């Protein structure tokens, strides 16, 4: 009941100092965030270590975060149940004859995958296993293979459905239906940018090409994939027609993927199911545990009213909507290098929201800038989950793939810039389908 021991500046110094220090000592990020909170919780007479426990509990006790295990499970079921195989054949008959055919397939498969699952890390994990070894055999450079697999995986959270959109919509009360629709064009543009990049690489380095598939083969692979390709329509349609809420849509994705795997494609056995469930649980654990300690960290920032201080400083610059858009993207890109996307939304998204509102940025537009920037954070070092996963599957160091990753990011960053200066990239489809979603 007496005053705070630490000043806001002192508290910020302790929080960020210990967090970065611990990360440098290779303490896992989730634990580094908790350790950063600890001294403050112990020093301040008004707080205690129980606050850390309580805040992590509050974070996990959330219906919205259920989307994370559901989308991971969807992805795992797709892999063990033969859905991924069918989509792979379809991608091959569509783009296999382009220069760098296998790498083009890599991008297009991620595009299809993105329409079903909302988890990029699940995409990176499954496609690293499929593509990296295969590309190695066909003479692609390792660093190229790892980089393209990782950057194409980010499509999964930009193209609906998306874990990040569900979390963003829940945390900042934006219509998740509108976010789903807003992600379609940026996702298409980024996939196109990646295909162009692959084309340029393939021409320069002479990567191989497959023979063009016949029209018959293309049609038959479309027919076989059709039930799987229906998933995005079911999810987005169900969301728009009011069959279920956003989190529930992730559960529908699980049920549909399970239905296809067990009854339509019939490739899943008990062992496959068991593996899918355990993998999902393990990954949910490590991915969401981090969200809990990050929430405690964010809660302490709010307790000392640090965000308010930062925001007053930035507001004084009086950036216009476009300037603010670039500033927001920059902040999220930097934060994305060190923090996972969901905790970043919880900590940083809530700080920036008043700023975006004050400059008149549309909430859906603001959300898309944030989500796309954070999606890129999945492949930026030192903490880029998709890149880390692809590297570990390929058994290469992250620094050896940095150059190619950065080259591939450049055209993607151009799409982000376009999204910032030209809002219709995000807002056109939502305004077309359901203008009432936009304020």
């Amino acid at each position, binding site marked *: 009941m007496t005053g705070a021991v630490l000043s806001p500046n002192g508290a910020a110094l302790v929080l960020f100092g210990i967090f970065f220090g611990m990360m440098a000592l290779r303490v896992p990020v989730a634990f580094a965030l908790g350790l950063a909170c600890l001294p403050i919780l112990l020093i301040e007479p008004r707080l205690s270590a129980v606050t850390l426990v309580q805040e992590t509990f509050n974070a996990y006790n959330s219906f919205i975060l259920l989307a994370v295990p559901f989308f991971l499970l969807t992805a795992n079921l797709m892999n063990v149940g033969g859905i991924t195989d069918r989509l792979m054949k379809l991608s091959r008959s569509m783009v296999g004859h382009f220069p760098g055919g296998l790498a083009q397939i890599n991008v297009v498969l991620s595009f299809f995958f993105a329409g079903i699952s909302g988890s990029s890390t699940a995409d990176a994990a499954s496609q690293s296993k499929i593509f990296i070894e295969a590309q190695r055999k066909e003479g692609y450079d390792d660093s190229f293979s790892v980089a393209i697999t990782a950057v194409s995986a980010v499509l999964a959270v930009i193209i609906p459905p998306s874990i990040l959109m569900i979390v963003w919509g829940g945390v900042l009360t934006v219509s998740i239906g509108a976010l789903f629709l807003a992600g379609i064009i940026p996702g298409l543009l980024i996939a196109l940018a990646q295909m162009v990049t692959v084309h340029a690489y393939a021409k320069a380095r002479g990567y191989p090409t497959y023979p063009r598939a016949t029209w018959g083969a293309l049609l038959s692979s479309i027919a076989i994939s059709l039930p799987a390709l229906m998933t995005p329509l079911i999810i987005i349609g169900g969301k*728009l027609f009011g069959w279920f*809420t956003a989190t529930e849509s992730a559960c529908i994705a699980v049920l549909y993927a399970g239905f296809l795997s067990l009854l339509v494609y019939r490739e899943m056995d008990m062992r496959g199911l068991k593996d899918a469930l355990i993998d999902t649980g393990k990954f949910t654990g490590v991915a969401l545990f981090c969200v809990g300690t990050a929430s405690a960290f964010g809660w302490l920032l709010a307790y000392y009213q640090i965000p308010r201080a930062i925001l007053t400083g930035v507001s004084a610059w009086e950036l216009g909507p476009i300037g603010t858009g670039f500033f927001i993207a920059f902040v999220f890109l930097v934060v994305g290098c060190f923090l996972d996307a969901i905790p970043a939304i919880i900590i940083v998204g809530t700080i920036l929201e008043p700023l975006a509102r004050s400059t008149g940025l549309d909430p859906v537009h603001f959300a898309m800038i944030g989500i796309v920037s954070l999606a890129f954070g999945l492949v930026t070092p030192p903490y880029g989950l998709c890149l880390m996963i692809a590297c570990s599957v390929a058994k290469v160091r992250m620094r050896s793939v940095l150059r190619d990753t950065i080259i591939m990011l450049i055209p993607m960053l151009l799409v982000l810039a376009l999204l910032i200066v030209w809002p219709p990239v995000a807002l056109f489809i939502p305004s077309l389908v359901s203008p009432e979603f936009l304020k």
Partner: protein
Amino acid sequence: QGIIELHGASQFNDDHAFTKSLAKFGELASSCYGKPLNIILHKNSELGLEKQYFEYMSQGRAVDFAIVSPAHMSTFSKAAPFIDAPFLFRDLAHWNKVLDQDLLKPIADEIAARADVMLIGYAGGGTRNIFVNKPVANMDDLKGLKVRVQGAPIWSRTFAAAGMSPTVIAYNEVYNAIQNGVIGAGENEAAGVEQMKFFEVAPNLAMTEHAITIRPIAFSGKTFKKLPADLQQCVIKAGKEAGAHGRQIESSEDTAKLEALEKAGRLKRIAFKDRDKMKKLVDPVMAEYAKEIGAEDILKKINEIK
């Protein structure tokens, strides 16, 4: 020893009646105490949501005072949601009399015993109505209506008894859920309808007046014990007065807010003809509930007030 510092928390911004009541509490306590006193009010859900404020107050950490909906106290005391149960009050006058006579004291005592949180004043006074995506004027219109209710069993039981189909959905998903047609309606007082912009998706307000809110100003028992005696008295006094102030703001703002929204063409108030019929259906459920939590006497006394 440094200056005493008390932290309050509100989910809402400066314009909201709860934030105003808590600010008033701070002013009243300071001026009554006369000695230096720092009051820090965390607004805009900075420290989380009401449910968490209550847990923090119970632990004696971080938050010392806050307005918390009784529904959020139910994990500590099953009787707590009774304070705010639907169909408890006939009208504002009835509600005022119940509060003036302090009839809810036994429940406040139970909460204090179980959670170590004191209810030092009663704000609230918003009349809750059903906002719905189609016009609803009588019991037939209500039949089978998918309506979101608060997460306390008494709410789903009473609404089900009235023939509706109550659903529990997180408060921040309600707007999306109505927009998408997952549910057709929700229920809230004017301040909530305005704050969450529910009128955008559900522009019809069926004036069921099924509840008049009571929002206790809660104070951490653990903090209270550490305060000097003169400040303790000031906290009690300020709590009572700030509660009365908050009731006065909200009950007068309530109608004004609805009128303003209606004038701007965003909302249509629809008279509800069957309130008595609805109450008849719900009364047995309320009686049974009161029996379950041992509040039969209180219910009887409340009903006896003319």
